């Protein structure tokens, strides 16, 4: 059989990055790569993406942090990380030693923090910077950056000024109005959008009838949210067909990947399933290859194909 390669290109007006394949780990569900690299060669992945880094070290939220829901996971990790200086010292050397696309995720609680992070990352020879604008903005009453259009615009503008890197805005699936947020992402010369992060949910302990998490709210991820993530990707491609989309939410098998591509994603990120099966990413790549072979399709023509089928 004539098998097409799995290469995919995230192409914006100003930048483009080529990936060996569309399979990328989602931030926060892959550590910083080194643990998984001891299990298999992570250079085979489309890209490696680190856990969101903040300026200051953060001990995150109190335990418990994990609650399983039907086909999903609520997490209240709270962006635990050892902060920017540690990242530069400990994570950077490993990341830069990799031979695939190297992506770093940054998270701020103020616009200034985002700016600082982008500025520092600008000097590193990485391939893309994912800007986690789905975290709460402490200046806007804890509302997510992507939920306040003025804040979003200002944040993206200042990040864009601070770095020449390929920039990905990672937004919440609840972003409203979605179309306006995407307009801003395009206008502020971001190169791609990642759709999306976890959905806000809560858990209550039926035994004690108290909130399960200290922070009450937590982020829902996993297969449960896939139909929603797929819908938001669909809508984004529909309204912004030239903005590269990285689909994320509940992916667990190659046909899920195909569905996200057909809905309009150029690549995907896989989160929760890494926690269920540490070896899932290489299998996804293999299965995707098999799928494309047996169905005689290539990736460039698959991206957005569910939309084209309607015309």
């Amino acid at each position, binding site marked *: 059989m004539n098998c097409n390669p799995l290469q995919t290109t995230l192409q914006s007006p100003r930048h483009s990055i080529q990936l060996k394949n569309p399979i990328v780990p989602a931030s926060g*569900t892959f550590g910083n790569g080194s643990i998984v690299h001891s299990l298999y060669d992570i250079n085979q992945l489309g890209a490696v993406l680190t856990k969101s880094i903040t300026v200051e070290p953060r001990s995150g939220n*109190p*335990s418990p942090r994990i*609650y399983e829901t039907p*086909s*999903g*996971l609520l*997490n209240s990790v709270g962006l*635990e990380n050892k902060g920017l200086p540690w990242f530069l010292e400990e994570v950077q050397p490993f990341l830069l030693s990799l031979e695939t696309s190297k992506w770093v995720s940054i998270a701020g609680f103020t616009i200034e923090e985002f700016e600082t992070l982008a500025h520092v990352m600008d000097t590193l020879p990485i391939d893309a910077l994912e800007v986690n604008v789905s975290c709460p903005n402490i200046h806007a009453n804890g509302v997510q950056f992507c939920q306040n259009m003025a804040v979003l615009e200002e944040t993206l503008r200042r990040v864009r000024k601070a770095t020449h890197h390929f920039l990905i805005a990672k937004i919440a699936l609840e972003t409203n109005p979605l179309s306006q947020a995407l307009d801003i992402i395009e206008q502020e010369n971001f190169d791609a959008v990642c759709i999306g992060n976890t959905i806000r949910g809560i858990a209550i302990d039926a035994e004690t009838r108290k909130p399960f998490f200290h922070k009450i709210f937590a982020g829902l991820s996993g297969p449960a949210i896939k139909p929603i993530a797929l819908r938001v990707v669909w809508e984004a491609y529909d309204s912004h067909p030239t903005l590269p989309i990285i689909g994320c939410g509940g992916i667990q098998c190659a046909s899920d990947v195909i569905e996200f591509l057909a809905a309009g994603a150029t690549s995907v990120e896989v989160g929760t399933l890494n926690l269920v099966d540490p070896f899932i990413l290489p299998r996804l790549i293999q299965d995707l290859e098999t799928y494309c072979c047996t169905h005689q399709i290539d990736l460039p023509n698959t991206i957005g194909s569910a939309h084209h089928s309607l015309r």
Partner: protein
Amino acid sequence: MIKTNGEIIEHQCIAKHIFLLSLRYPESNLIVEPGQFVQLSCPGKHTTLLKRPFSVFDASPNIVSIVYKVVGKGTTNLSEKRVGDSLEMILPCGNPFSIPQEGGLNVLIGGGLGIAPLHFLTKYYPKPPFEFWYGTSYEEEWIPANLLQRSGIDLHIHADFSTSNHHSLQFPENLLQKYQKESTTSPTKIYCCGPTKLMQNVTKHCMEKNIPIEVSLESRMACGFGICLGCSFLTKDGMKTVCKDGPTFDGSNVIWESLT
């Protein structure tokens, strides 16, 4: 650490709601040590997504055994599996206990199913002298002594059902006090696994008496191998993950309040 399929070769109810489960897997060169755990997928009528962590109760080449209690969805599913069924698992996870000193007196304190990794410790290291203290608050959950002794080592099992307190807090204190009155040699090391409150109390006692204490912690886990930070907690050396940096820790390093 590998992902493999374990075929159930033994599955029996050994006490109320408590089962012994042995799985055979094909990989032959795997080293599984006491204190480590397996992440076991528990599919069935009740939908589960994550694998469940269980301490290794026993292991020999190609075989791993756990002792588990039915408490929720996954363990209920598990209890309905039969010999011949096969389950996906990740193993070995986490760090083993440190090697017990051969000359010294190693005291093991297990509360409830905390017995599991300690049993494997006695079996894995046949030489060092162990004193094994086992307590459970519910008589019907008592794991039969023959299971704990089947390794052929002479164990001193101290049981105490007298406490109605279901965290069995009194049991180790009573025993530790009794031990210190009656015995001439002091323990060279204490290994403890059980409810968090139990481990916290034993640690406090040990720190007062300057006895080295190693504990095996529990936590709600997602990945079980250090990539999600779902099981992080604060130690005197900063944030650590139960699954990857532990589950075995020097008890005196744990900041107990951070383990809700």
